[in-house]
């Protein structure tokens, strides 16, 4: 009877000082072991039943003492992915990797956490569910199509959402970290009552400046027109310097809008179609873009109906 192979064990050793050392104890294939596997794979992928059967016989009689080394220690073995990447599920991790992997923490709010991905993307994770059926695929598909429509109508002001999936996960084009944006994020980390007067004044002034920008007014007007009702009636929330980043004088919203059956934040069809006609007449969008918006709207409708009609 052969001895069973012990499974690789991760042992955390407390090394002198404050650094913890991770040691992995595991066995590895010997030279003979590697040759053995190579030979078996060649046989098993062939078309001869006798050879496949022989592989089973070889596995039955394999001698692990020849094929495997003794246990060896591997200190500080690289753990796959960064700590941030380790929280993502496998499929999401592969999407993130396809965009260049996590390159750092972008920011963290009370309900969301954002990681920089590659050179120009951000992965946003909702910490908690934000609306009924919010963790459903339909919810995220609705949000995706809504943002695609906003992006086509105002590409400079609404970044493109590249992917929105269940499990509270979204990938969006990254907005540059301006000095104002970095400062606004730092201020917002503190509780409002604890802000320094200088910070509070700066924050309020920035909000006013953003609200006064013409293109911000256009953004606000578009949201008021197509969303029923857009709850931020005054625009105070959208204009906060941590929600809208001004790059070369252009406001870019980093807010994410989502269908919600409590506040009915859904697209008003008549208004959307009117806006499409107006933009086509003014040559602000092409015929093709108009058609794409209509297709996206149909897909939005299909998903939003599914997601809002189902009760929690």
């Amino acid at each position, binding site marked *: 009877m*052969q001895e*069973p*192979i012990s499974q690789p064990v991760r042992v955390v050793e407390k090394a002198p000082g404050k650094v913890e050392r991770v040691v992995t104890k595991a066995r590895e294939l010997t030279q003979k072991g590697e040759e053995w*596997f190579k030979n*078996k*794979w060649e046989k098993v992928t062939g078309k001869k*039943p006798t050879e496949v059967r022989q592989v089973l016989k070889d596995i039955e009689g394999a001698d692990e003492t020849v094929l495997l080394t003794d246990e060896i220690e591997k200190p500080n073995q690289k753990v796959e992915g960064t700590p941030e990447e380790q929280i993502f599920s496998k499929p999401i991790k592969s999407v993130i990797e396809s965009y260049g992997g996590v390159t750092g923490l972008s920011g963290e709010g009370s309900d969301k956490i954002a990681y920089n991905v590659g050179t120009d993307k951000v992965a946003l994770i909702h910490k908690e569910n934000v609306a009924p059926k919010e963790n459903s695929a339909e919810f995220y598909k609705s949000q995706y199509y809504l943002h695609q429509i906003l992006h086509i109508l105002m590409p400079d002001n609404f970044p493109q959402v590249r992917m929105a999936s269940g499990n509270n996960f979204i990938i969006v084009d990254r907005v540059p970290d301006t000095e104002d944006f970095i400062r606004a994020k730092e201020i917002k980390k503190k509780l409002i009552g604890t802000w320094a007067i200088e910070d509070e004044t700066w924050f309020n002034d920035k909000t006013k400046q953003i609200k006064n920008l013409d293109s911000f007014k256009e953004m606000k007007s578009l949201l008021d027109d197509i969303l029923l009702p857009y709850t931020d009636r005054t625009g105070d929330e959208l204009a906060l310097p941590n929600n809208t980043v001004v790059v070369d004088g252009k406001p870019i919203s980093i807010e994410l809008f989502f269908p919600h059956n409590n506040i009915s934040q859904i697209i008003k069809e008549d208004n959307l179609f009117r806006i499409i006609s107006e933009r086509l007449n003014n040559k602000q969008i092409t015929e093709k873009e108009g058609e794409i918006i209509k297709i996206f709207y149909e897909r939005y409708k299909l998903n939003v109906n599914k997601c809002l009609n189902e009760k929690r």
Partner: protein
Amino acid sequence: MVNQSNKLLFQVEQEIAKLLLVKLEKFDITFERASQISKFILSHLPENLTDEQVIKIIPSLDDQFLELSEVVHKHMLGYEEKYKEDTIKNMQDMIKHKHFQEASNMAFKYFEQKIELK
């Protein structure tokens, strides 16, 4: 070469051998366990079994070795795909011609096999 009558046997053996090699290479399974599984497969699936005989044996393969459940599950789904449409069509014809007992027997046979394949 594979002949038509024991095509399924070859396919199942190949899938199991690949599964064991992958698990061994990743250290997901011990050589002792893989040896036990191989021995079991070689004795329960003797050479020259027909496809019909293999179909009957497949459901029992993961009773003792849970590691084989993915192979069993794959063939269970394959069975459902292959026979579902044919069974429904045949049953509809039988009901149309008022052969209710035959239709019932056919449904029973289909579900019985499905349960076995669980």
